[in-house]
């Protein structure tokens, strides 16, 4: 899988490159600032981009803006955004176009290398990978209103794990239930959120969108 890497700190960029290569990804470009990143994304059209939010020249949200600009040119370009901190606000901006193929993780998640590689693949496949921190903040708000209010606590939990980019198998493991039980929960969730039958990945993205957009 071809990856474009955007990270301004040399040590982290090299570390990420090595980690991804060790998990079978091919780094086609590794850049260190916003404008170059945008060029690289448009030139290489990678299978997935792994990008730091804060980069030169302004050291604000350069990376995020480059990624959003690239996705305007290339709709659905898979991007995984890494950051020292997560904000629901940014998560929404990434998901706003509804095309999915978006990840938003704390840099700490890189520590669990295999889980991280799995998240990158999930995004490359068109899924989502939201950081548990974003999810837990949503849960802390007490389970939302209207649409999501119809979900049972268990279904809400399943939806949260779905938003993190977990597969049904992984969710079953986490909750210590059978995979069939999880499948039943997910179809209930799709039903309650009024998502028409279509391919499963797309519905998962839409469900996560509803989840993040509950306020």
């Amino acid at each position: 899988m071809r990856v474009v890497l955007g990270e301004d700190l040399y040590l982290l960029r090299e570390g990420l490159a090595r980690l991804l290569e060790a998990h079978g990804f091919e780094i086609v470009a590794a850049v260190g600032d916003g404008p170059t990143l945008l060029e690289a994304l448009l030139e290489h059209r990678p299978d997935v981009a792994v990008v730091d939010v804060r980069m030169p020249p302004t050291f604000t949200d350069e990376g995020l803006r480059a990624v959003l600009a690239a996705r305007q040119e290339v709709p659905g370009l898979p991007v995984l955004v890494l950051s020292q901190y997560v904000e629901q606000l940014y998560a929404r901006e990434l998901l706003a176009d509804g095309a999915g193929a978006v990840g938003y993780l704390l840099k700490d998640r890189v520590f669990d290398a295999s889980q991280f590689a799995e998240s990158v693949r999930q995004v490359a496949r068109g899924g989502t990978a939201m950081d548990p921190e974003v999810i837990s903040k949503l849960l802390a708000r007490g389970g939302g209103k209207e649409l999501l209010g119809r979900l049972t606590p268990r279904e809400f939990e399943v939806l949260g794990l779905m938003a993190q980019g977990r597969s049904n198998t992984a969710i079953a493991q986490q909750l210590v239930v059978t995979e069939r039980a999880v499948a039943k929960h997910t179809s209930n969730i799709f039903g309650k959120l009024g998502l028409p039958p279509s391919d499963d990945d797309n519905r998962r993205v839409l469900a996560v969108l509803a989840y993040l957009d509950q306020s």
Partner: protein
Amino acid sequence: MNTTSGPRDAVPTPGRPADGGEGYGGNRQRGSRARRMARTIGWNWADFAYSIKHAFIFALQLTAIVTVFTGFGWLFLPATTRMTRQAANAARQRARDRFGMRIEEPYLPEPRFQDGFMGRIEECRWILTDRSTWRDLVWMLLDPFIGGILGSFAGSLLLESAYGLVLLVFWPVLTKHGMNDWYGFVHVSTPPGVLEWRWALVPMAGIFFGLGVVLPDRLVLAHAKWSRALLSPSEKSRLALRVARLTETRTDAVDAQAAELRRIERDLHDGAQARLVAMGMNLGAAEALLDQNPEAVRALLVEARESSARALTELRELVRGIHPPVLSDRGLGDAVRAVALDSPLAVEVRVELPGRLEPAVESAAYFAICELLTNTAKHAHAHSAWIDIRHAQGRLAVTCTDDGLGGARTGAGSGLAGIERRIGAFDGIMAVTSPQGGPTVVSLEIPCVLSSEKTSTS
């Protein structure tokens, strides 16, 4: 409850309607004409009554001042000064209630005096060297003449006019009972056959009536304006007040900063630093065990990794408390939106900021809003909150409204007092309206400029 608090020396800013001149009358728009008349005449007579009180206070205060070095004036000068200031403040408040006329207090904050005799002497010296003491004294001296005479004159015009008509009809009866038969310069009991001057009473009563309708209003306003001339701070004491206020806010700001640094130091010491030490020890132990016990090494490495993750989490929290990244990335509007998303309340945020604020103001406003939201979530029992942020006429204006139970307090030690201190360093002011039963509305205003740079909302 309805309180307004803010620095007493808030300087009128260009662009805001300045207090002064004509245009007072917010209170006078309501009620029928007759009721307004009655109220104005009530004010006339109230001013008359107050002016008598002021004459007494003047006598006490003057005695205290005169005898302060020769007799026992020093014993009661502080008390009489308090009385004087209370009376003057009441007059300032009346001007505000009646006309919305704002008369600032000129009094400097009271310093701390020693106990005992020496402290008393210090206090007397402090009182006597304060210019406002003398201005108050002059005001007290003149008010009986101006407030009393103007007040009683204006207040009695209508009565006088009515009396004229009564006299015109009943003068024979009245004079028989020993009442004066003069009305102004007219002698009513003219003998028969002479030109009957008493019919002049009709136009005279008419003139009195006309004056009685027109004058009370003007005189009560004239009196308020006259009071303002003496009761508002002179340029000198305005500057002194400003200096006192700046000293106070500077001390607050420096104290707050020092406390913040201590907190950061403590957090780093107990948090990230300790975790890094533990990590180093774990790695050292792992190195030592590498050959003998690979299983134990694995456990130690897992622990070290968890330590580093926790250290990161703690650093992240710390950074958010110092200066949240989203604030530097996106500015006040988006930073507040981000906080609103994290709040347990349903928060609606409206922002009209065509540029970025000065960083220091931005940060102060951000933390003030965070604290308002936290307060609301904790104490107000609210479901929703609305935050409105705009910049107009050189001021950042923030309004935070909630649908909670109200009854918020602004006293010392409350969260709201902390917010006021926080924005006080920037000459910001806060106003709280929070009747029992809600809703609570908190407004903040901070003078500041916008940089022309456009905020990016990609």
